[in-house]
């Protein structure tokens, strides 16, 4: 239940540089550390995708840093590392561990997370994981070529199956296992904090939807990362200790007999996707929370259907654990279970649709202010709808018979969990930057960045649907090996050119971010006229957030334009009466 916030400021404000900024126990510093880790990771992941696009459009050209013409195996290691880095170190790290860490305790009126030491430990474990992952580029054989899904036997049997499958693949799986450790610590902390450290009056049904999203995401993380950790350890054992969890008997690779026997490649797929599908929601739920918050704030109107939104988050989270089989329709899994998985998969479209309807309902009747965070939140809604709808195709095993492993799949998940989630991160960045760093980001630059990015991502990922319908397989280094792909090459050229422009536009964001840190306009306590608790404390907040006093909460998070109120928003901490 709710506690006095000040009681949990178990650690004093540190004075030395190292304890203040490096090995800090302050959730705000740790949140920023996670965010900056994700910022580095997203640039690495994006540069990898740039090289992929260069290879796809100009397969015979030489590009800097690759040493000659890029080989097919180099392309596949880009595929693998781009996917892995983006999913784990960007989409899992920034929205949940970054923003969640910084904002959640303040939004519920706490002085810090429940376990500050675990919090610091989880960040440094994640940092170690990232270092191990990057090391895979620099070892003999290079980074692995088995994709971010790392399907055995390809990922299990070692270098005999291809370059990068030796030490590089081992580092990859070790890194994932370490990452799981960090994610589990973080998940525990988020759950305990949300349940135990809420301020007086912060009932569950008064929590901002951001808190709900981080809370449910933490539960998903707790249930999913344990399974990936187990799968990762088993794969590591297959690779280094001679076990055969995932390697069946009788394999012959390059005329060499593989001595393993008795394992099942599908076992890995079940374990991986039992993690992997909830992971999609781990990436997107926090974005949904942020978008709900921002839409309501800048439409100056209460969120439409708050309770339905909470139940939808729970519904998505719960159903998210029951649909993993839709990644395996054509794997040889029981065809009967495919029917069950498909019905559950399409069911998850229902809470997703509820959220979309409620976002539209929030806008209708409002008075919309088009700030940069609002543009990104609106962009998120558009992209989420677009990406979600292609899921209606892929969730049906009948249609997956043709579409599986084509660019249609690539288009689908990049739209919905890639760029939509990234738009959530951008929205959160422009929205909370003033609180986190005490200065506003530059609005004209932010808007320029939005326009190029929004049109860019549509121009990149929409055409992938079309070449997917034409049957273009994923993970092809070039189109030369299959005759019918020749006619699709111009689409690749187009996508690559747009990708170069869109990636270049991200320098605008980077410049805006660092320029604003030092030269941005000073932020007031509540520059967006928002109602939640982080906007009651200075920007940036002091070490214990509320300066030793304990906030008391009187309202839900979305009281905008209440009839008869003194101004167009009522803070959660304001004792002013609201009569519905």
């Amino acid at each position, binding site marked *: 239940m709710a506690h006095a916030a000040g009681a949990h400021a178990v650690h004093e404000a540190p004075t030395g540089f190292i304890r203040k900024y490096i090995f800090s126990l302050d959730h705000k510093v740790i949140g920023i550390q996670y965010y900056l880790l994700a910022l580095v990771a997203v640039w690495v992941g994006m540069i990898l995708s740039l090289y992929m696009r260069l290879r796809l459009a100009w397969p015979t050209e030489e590009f800097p840093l690759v040493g000659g013409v890029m080989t097919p195996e180099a392309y596949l290691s880009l595929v693998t590392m781009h996917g892995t880095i983006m999913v784990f170190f960007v989409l899992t790290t920034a929205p949940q561990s970054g923003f969640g860490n910084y904002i959640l305790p303040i939004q519920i009126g706490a002085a810090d997370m429940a376990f500050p030491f675990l919090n610091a430990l989880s960040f440094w474990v994640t940092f170690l994981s990232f270092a191990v992952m990057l090391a895979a580029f620099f070892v003999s054989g290079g980074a692995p070529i088995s994709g971010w899904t790392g399907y055995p*036997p390809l990922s299990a049997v070692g270098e005999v199956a*291809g370059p990068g499958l030796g030490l590089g693949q081992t580092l990859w799986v070790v890194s994932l296992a370490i990452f799981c450790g960090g994610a589990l610590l973080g998940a525990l902390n988020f759950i305990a904090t949300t349940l135990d450290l809420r301020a007086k009056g912060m009932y569950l049904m008064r929590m901002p939807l951001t808190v709900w999203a981080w809370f449910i995401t933490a539960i998903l993380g707790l249930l999913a990362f344990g399974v990936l950790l187990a799968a990762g350890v088993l794969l590591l054992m297959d690779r280094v200790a001679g076990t055969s969890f995932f390697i069946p008997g009788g394999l012959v690779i390059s005329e060499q007999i593989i001595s393993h026997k008795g394992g099942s490649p599908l076992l890995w797929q079940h374990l991986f996707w039992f993690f992997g599908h909830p992971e999609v929601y781990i990436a997107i739920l926090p974005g949904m929370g942020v978008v709900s918050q921002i839409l309501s704030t800048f439409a100056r109107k209460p969120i439409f259907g708050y309770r339905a939104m909470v139940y939808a988050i729970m519904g998505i989270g719960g159903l998210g654990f029951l649909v993993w089989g839709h990644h395996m329709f054509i794997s040889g899994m029981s065809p009967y279970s495919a029917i069950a998985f498909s019905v559950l998969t399409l069911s998850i479209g229902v809470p997703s649709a509820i959220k979309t309807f*409620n976002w539209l309902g929030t806008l209708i009747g409002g008075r919309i202010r088009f700030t940069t965070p609002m543009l990104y939140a609106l962009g998120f809604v558009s992209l989420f709808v677009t990406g979600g709808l292609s899921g209606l195709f892929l969730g049906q095993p009948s249609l997956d018979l043709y579409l599986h492993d084509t660019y249609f799949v690539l288009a689908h998940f990049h739209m919905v969990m890639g760029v939509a989630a990234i738009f959530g991160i951008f929205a959160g960045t422009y929205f909370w930057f003033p609180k986190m760093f005490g200065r506003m980001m530059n609005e004209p630059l932010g808007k320029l960045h939005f326009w190029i990015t929004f049109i860019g991502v549509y121009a990149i990922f929409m055409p992938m649907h079309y070449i997917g*319908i034409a049957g273009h397989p994923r993970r092809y280094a070039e189109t030369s090996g299959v005759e019918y792909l020749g006619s699709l090459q111009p689409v690749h050229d187009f996508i690559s050119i747009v990708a170069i422009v869109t990636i270049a536009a991200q320098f605008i964001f980077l410049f805006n971010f660092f320029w604003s840190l030092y030269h941005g306009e000073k932020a007031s306590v509540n520059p967006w006229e928002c109602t939640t608790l982080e906007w009651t404390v200075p920007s940036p907040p002091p070490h214990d957030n509320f300066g030793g006093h304990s906030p008391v909460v009187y309202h839900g998070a979305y009281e905008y334009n209440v009839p008869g109120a003194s101004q167009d928003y009522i803070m959660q901490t304001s004792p002013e009466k609201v009569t519905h």
Partner: protein
Amino acid sequence: MAVVLALAITVITLVSMYLFTVKTWWMPPYISEYGQAYDQHFMLTLVICGIIFFLAQLGLAYAIFRYRDRGQKVHYSHGNNTLEAIWTSATAVLFIGLVLWGSHIWARAHLQEAPAGAVQVEAWGQQFTWYFRYPGPDGRLGNTKPELMKESIGNPLGLDPDDPASRDDVVMPVIAIPVNRPVEVILRSKDVIHNFAVRELRLKQDLVPGLENRIHFTASQIGRYEVPCMELCGLGHYQMRTFLEVMSEADFENWLRENAPETQ
């Protein structure tokens, strides 16, 4: 800003939808018994998604334009339970109905066995090539042994010379089948996971080492169709391609005879 954003969303929506309708990049004509039902259900899903896409995006564009800040009064509301109930049940019925409506295609391909008398072909994937094995005149696929799998001595599938059933097996790098006759393909892999996909059949199935996955179909058009590997199998994945050759019954028998092993 509001006008531009509403316009941008509208233009993106209309252009995207237009490019789905012109079918410049599209599925090739089908040649299997699943094709007609597949294409119909694909179109049904496309139309439903198209309508939702259009309404949702233009609804968003409209809200952006109509409710931009012009100093108007905000309608204070926390929602409407009737509306929530309506759109929850409507989407549930629509989405679950859609998947059940189309599941007969899956059932026909995977819940039904191959008809008796189907031509049996065993497909083998290996990095980065294909082999297809036919049982020969005795109608039986013989034993194979991993330790005998050596392309260098002309025995890529490890046919066991001690098994009489193996001696007449026909092994080819492409798959030929007779037109208008049911075919069952037994999918196996020597090394890693591969995928057998023929766009014109509207079928796709993994070749998983240790498993014997099966698909069955009847091809109705004589011709040569590409079979690209669709599951990441290593550095040569993009080159792992073979052909499905659909022939007349007589040509197929000839083809089998011509390619039969010389020593019986």
